[in-house]
C-alpha cells in the first residue's frame, strides 16, 4: 500500500506492505537506525518515537497507521547541529552506557519536559517507567533529565 509519512519534517512517500511495523519502516526503509527494536511486546521502549507529538512504541504500530501523520525520531533532537538539553544532560550525567535504550529514553524525556518543565525525580521515574535500561539502574537517567530541566530553566531565565 502507498503511505506518506512526515518524518523529522520531511515527507516520505513509500509503497509498503500493510503489515510493516513502523520501527522497520524507519530503520530499514528510511535508514533511520537511531530508534532500536528490543522486545516485540511493548515492554522495553527502545523503539520510542513521537507520533504527532506523543511518544509511541514503534514496534507495536504499523507503518500504515502513521500514514498522514508526523513522526519524530532521535535523529531530529539536535536542531541545526546544536544538541537538545536532554542530549547534553545524558552526556553530562552519564545517563547512558551501551546506548541502546538511550534514543527512546531521550524522546520520552523530551516529551516530559515539554509538558512538565520542572519534574520531580518521582515524576521522571513514572514517565520513563514503560522503558527499560539494562545498564544504568536508572539513577543517572533521572539525573540527566533533572540536569536538562535545570539547564532549560536557566535558559528561560536568561531569555526573560
Amino acid at each position: 500500500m502507498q503511505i506518506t509519512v512526515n518524518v523529522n519534517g520531511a515527507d516520505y512517500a513509500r509503497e509498503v506492505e500493510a503489515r510493516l511495523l513502523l520501527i522497520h519502516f524507519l530503520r530499514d526503509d528510511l535508514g533511520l537506525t537511531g530508534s532500536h527494536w528490543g522486545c516485540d511486546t511493548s515492554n522495553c521502549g527502545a523503539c520510542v518515537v513521537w507520533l504527532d507529538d506523543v511518544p509511541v512504541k514503534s514496534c507495536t504500530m504499523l507503518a500504515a497507521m502513521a500514514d498522514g501523520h508526523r513522526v519524530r525520531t532521535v535523529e531530529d533532537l539536535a536542531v541545526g547541529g546544536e544538541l537538545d538539553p536532554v542530549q547534553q544532560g545524558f552526556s553530562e550525567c552519564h545517563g547512558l552506557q551501551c546506548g541502546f535504550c538511550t534514543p527512546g529514553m531521550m524522546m520520552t524525556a523530551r516529551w516530559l519536559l515539554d509538558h512538565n518543565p520542572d519534574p520531580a525525580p518521582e515524576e521522571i521515574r513514572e514517565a520513563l517507567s514503560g522503558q527499560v535500561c539494562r545498564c544504568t539502574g536508572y539513577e543517572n537517567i533521572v539525573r540527566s533529565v533533572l540536569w536538562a530541566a535545570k539547564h532549560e530553566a536557566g535558559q528561560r531565565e536568561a531569555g526573560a
Partner: protein
Amino acid sequence: MRHGDGQMTGEGEAGGAYGPVRRKEDARFIRGQGNFTDDIRLPGMLHGAILRSPLAHARIASIDVTAAEAHPRVRAVITGQTLADRGLAWMPTLSQDVQAVLATDKVRFQGQEVAFVVAEDRYSARDALELISVDYEPLPPVIDARTALDPGAPVIRDDLAGKQDNHIFDWEAGDQVATDAVFAGADVVVAQDMLYPRSHPAPLETCGAVADFNKISGQLTIWTTSQAPHAHRTLYALVVGLPEHKIRIISPDVGGGFGNKVPIYPGYLCAVVGSMLTGSPVKWMEDRSENLMSTSFARDYHMHGEIAATRDGTILAVRATVLADHGAFNGSAQPSKFPAGFFHIFTGSYDLRAAHCQVTGVYTNKAPGGVAYSCSFRITEAVYLVERMVDILAGELGMDPAELRMKNLLRPEQFPYTCPTGWQYDSGNYPRALQVAMDIADYPELRREQASKRERGEHMGIGISFFTEGVGAGPRKHMDILGLGMADGADLRMHPTGKAVLSVSCQTQGQGHETTFAQIVAQELGLSPDDVDVVHGDTDRTPFGLGTYGSRSTPVSGAAAAVVARKVRERARIVASAMLEVAPDDLEWSGRRWQVRGDPEKARTITEIAMAAHGALELPEGVEGHLDAATVYNPPNLTHPFGAYICVTDVDPVTGQVQIRRFIAVDDCGVRINPMIVEGQVHGGLADGVGMALMQVIAFDADGNCLGGSFMDYLLPTSMECPSWELGATVTPSPHHPIGAKGVGESATVGSPPAIVNSVLDALRPFGVRHADMPLTPAAVWSAVQGHPYRSDLAIT
C-alpha cells in the same frame, strides 16, 4: 540528600588524567548514530530466520522444506542435513562439549534450532518458516534437575557415544576430611537448601550477526554482537575450517552483553553457511523470545549449604553440595579447568578454618548455558550461598547480622590471604567497608525504627551482604578457554605529533573503554585523554586477547594499556636522552615529561619526543626510531574487589509486595580511573540484583515449555522498582595490578541479591520464615508467610 555520594575513604585519590571525565562514546549514541549489528546494511544483503523446536524433547522423523524453497523470495533453506554434509551440524561449546547447530537426530530443548531460511527480506524469511514441515516423535523430557540422575531418566545426550545418563561432571574443592572434622566439633551447625533460579542476562540488543563470505578471496567477515571477537575468530576457524587469517570479526557497538554475548550461537554459523551458499551477505538477528529461550541463560544452581560456628559467633567452616543444571548441551563459558566456575570462592569474606564444596553438573531438556549475567564465573551463586548462610546463622545465634559479620570478616593484616579452597585474595580492608556502609545507612537508627515498626505491626527489613570477588582471569597457566590462555594484548601507536592510538583485545558493551583506557594511557604519558583514541572490536585492527567478561577488562586490558604506555615511555626516555644530550639514567619522569635530574628546566614532553623520534634526530647505536610498542599482559593473579551492601525494604505480608526503600552500596575496586563510570557500573548491577531477587526467573512447565520467553513473563526492573542508590567507596589498591585497579563491572550484580533477600527475610522474621527462594515475587512472599514456600522455577504442581 544523597548519603555518601562520592564519599571516598582510602589510600589517596589518583590525579592527572584520572577522574570523572565525560565519555567519548556518548557523542554518537546521544545523536542516534551508534552502529549496532542490526544497523549494518550491505549491498545485496539477505536475511535469515530460524525455525525452532516447539518441543523440549523429541526425535525428528522427517523435515520437508519443499514449500519453503518454493517461496519466491527465499534464496536458501538450510537443515541439519545440509550442515552435516559439510561436517558443520555440530559445533564445539566453550566447555568441551558439542552443541547441535541445526538438529539432525533429536531436539533437546524448546526453542532449539531446526532449520534456517535465507530470504530477500526479514518478513519473507519468517513467512517461509511457516512452510517448513517437521515430523516430531515426542520423548519424555527431563525438566527438574533433581530428577536428571534418577535411574531410568530419559537419556538426553544419546548422541554422545556410550552415554547412559544425564551426568556431566563432578567437581570438588577444599578439604572434605578437615571440613567434616571441624563441623563434627562445632557448637552450632545450620543447614539450608536454596535455589539460585535460572535467569537470563537479556541485554536490550539481542544477539545477531551479518556474515559476508567472499568466494574469490576466501575472506569471511562477520559483524556480530560479540564480547570476545578474537576468541570467536579462532572458534570459527576451528569450526568452519577456514584459515584464521581469512576471518575478520567486527564487533561494532554492542547493546549490552552481561555474558550473553560470549558464546557463538547456531544462528551465527547459519548466517555464515547462508552466505557461503548464496554468495551474498546474510544478516541474522534473533527476536526477544529467541534470545530468552535459546541463548546463554544464567545460574540454575540447586545448593545445599551448611555453616559451622561456635556459640559465641565465631564462624569455623562452610560446606556445600550443588546440583548444577546446564541444560541440553554443556555450553557454559568459563576457564576450562573450572567446570563450576569460581564457585569455590564460597568461603566468602570470612576467616575460616576449613571449607569444602562438591558440584555435580547435569543435562536437562532446557537451553544450554549457565555462566552469564555478570556472574564473575559463578561467584554470584557463591556469594549468595555464604551470605544467606551467615544470615541464617545469625538468626540461629540470636546475633545481629552486622555484628556477626564484623566479628568474622578477614582483617586487613591477613592480606594477601589464602582461603581454604585455595584462592589468594590480593588486598582488602573489609571492616572499614562494612563500617562505611553502616555509617551511611545509620544502621543503629534503622534497627530502632524497625523495632518500633514491628510493635505497630509494620514489616520493615534490613539486609546486609558482604562480598569478595575474584575477577580478571588469568593467569594464563591456570586459566584458558578452549586451550586459549587468558591473556590480552595491547598495541600503542604514537604519531609524530604526539597523538596516540591504543588497540586492545577487549570489547566494550557500554563500560566506556574508549574513555577509561584513554585515561590510563594519558596518565602514563602526561597526555590529555583527548589525545588518545582507543580501537577495539575489530580483529584486523587489534591484538589477540580473550575479551570482555568476568569483569576482566580493567584487570587485564587496563593493565596491558598501562604496561604498553610505560614501554612507550621508556622508549621515549632514550630519545629524550639524545635530544638533551644526557645519559638515559640521568633522566627522571616527572609525571608529565622526562627531565634531567637536578635540572628540571631541561625536559621534553612525550609530544616533543614523538616528533623527534620520527624525525632526523641521531639516535644512539641500536636504538630504533618511532615510539610504538606492544605488549601481552598475563595477570599474575585475579584482582579481588569487595563491598558491603545494605538494603532496607518495606514488606506487606498481606499482598506480598516488597518495596526497596533504600540501598546503600560501598564498593572497593581499588584505584578508580573514572569514578563516574565506576558508579554507573555499580548502579546497573544493583538494578540487576533487584530483578534477580524480586522479579526474574526462567521457569518451565512439566512438558518443558519455557515460561519466561518474553518481557511480558520475564520481568525486568524499571525505574519504578529501583530506588535512588546510595553509594560509598573505599580504595584498597591491588598490589599486583600496574595501576592498583580491580574489576568492578559485576560487583553489584554479585553482591546485591543476597542483601535484598536478607532484607525481605528480615522483615518476615515475625512470621518465622527462615528462607524463601528468589525471585521474591508477591506470590512467593505471600506463600512464605502462609508457611508454604514453593518452587518458582517449575510450574509443576
